[in-house]
């Protein structure tokens, strides 16, 4: 193989790797549609939640967090970070879980950041919720007494009509800029 062929192979390999890691507009658009649907459902359950969307410096919508069904497992989800009403980054959630669940669990999760400092802290990467952090399970009027705690407010609602409080302590978030 001559030098020119080696360079050509390197260029093709580099392009292939770049393509594999590139932001996929189609996937992001699909995620955005799911996030907007989750937001609509949230506001339908409790219209008072609008004040958090209006007041927050930024928010994350993860349309579906799926939790394993048995023993020691993981909960995973992908969502988007919104600033000024526009999506600015992809967010992935992961969490160690334990406990048997019939058929697993699925819920939507919303994180609101009170100010730029809290948002900046989240965007810095490797954001992790402390074990003592809890989320508000959204029902009618749930937002009335809800407050920011250390600059973050977290809400969940179960999918499929089941009612339970999702445990969010220990969740880890990874932020990937678009």
């Amino acid at each position, binding site marked *: 193989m001559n030098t020119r062929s080696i360079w050509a192979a390197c260029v093709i390999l580099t392009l292939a790797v770049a393509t594999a890691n590139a932001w996929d507009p189609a996937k992001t658009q699909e995620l955005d549609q799911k996030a907007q649907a989750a937001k609509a459902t949230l506001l339908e359950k409790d219209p008072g939640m609008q004040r958090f969307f209006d007041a927050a410096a930024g928010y994350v919508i993860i349309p579906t967090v799926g939790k*394993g*069904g*048995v*023993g*020691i*497992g*993981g909960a*995973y989800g992908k969502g988007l970070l919104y600033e000024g009403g526009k999506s600015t980054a992809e967010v*992935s*959630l*992961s*969490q*160690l*879980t*334990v*406990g*048997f669940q019939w058929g697993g669990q699925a819920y939507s999760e919303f994180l609101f950041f009170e100010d730029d400092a809290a948002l900046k802290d989240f965007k810095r990467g490797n954001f*992790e919720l402390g*074990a003592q952090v809890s989320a508000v399970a959204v029902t009618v009027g749930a937002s009335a007494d809800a407050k920011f705690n250390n600059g973050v407010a977290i809400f969940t609602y179960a999918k499929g009509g089941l009612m339970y409080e999702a445990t969010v*302590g*220990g969740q*880890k978030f*990874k932020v990937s800029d678009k």
Partner: protein
Amino acid sequence: MLSLALVPLGAVQAAESGFYLGGSIGQASFDVPTDITEIPSFNEDDTGYKVFGGYNFNIGIINLGVEGGYVDFGNPSARFNTAVLSIDADGWNVWGIGGVNLGPFDVFAKVGVVSWDASISVTGLDPGLGSLSDSGSDPGYGLGARISFGRLAVRGEWEVYEIEDTDDVSMFSVGLAWRF
């Protein structure tokens, strides 16, 4: 056996009534189902120990007792490629014990409750899963045998803990107990 050689031993005899304190060391086994693709199973052992105290009521050939203690199940871990799942667990337990004297030996069975704490961590995955703490109270049971030399008893036992969300948590141990 070294311990036995260092204490004044009485003749081999059946268990008698009285308070006792002791300690054991052995192998703790964990079989826990997992729902993590990279870690398909967790069936691991580690060295554990326990310290205990109780009272034995000897009525003829029958022994009835109550016992409480602390158990440390060790820190078993499993590695699959880069992924490592570790469990660090301990607990406090209370047992009701019943048994019979069979010549110099006595055998016993016990049922009780363990109040446990566990730290579970998964490392080496991307995205990372981190760690969590869990606790609870669950039933347990066990079988054992002991032989007494005066106030000193040597015992071996097998305990099973029906801990929630696990398939099996058990411990086989041998130890010494001193009757006061």
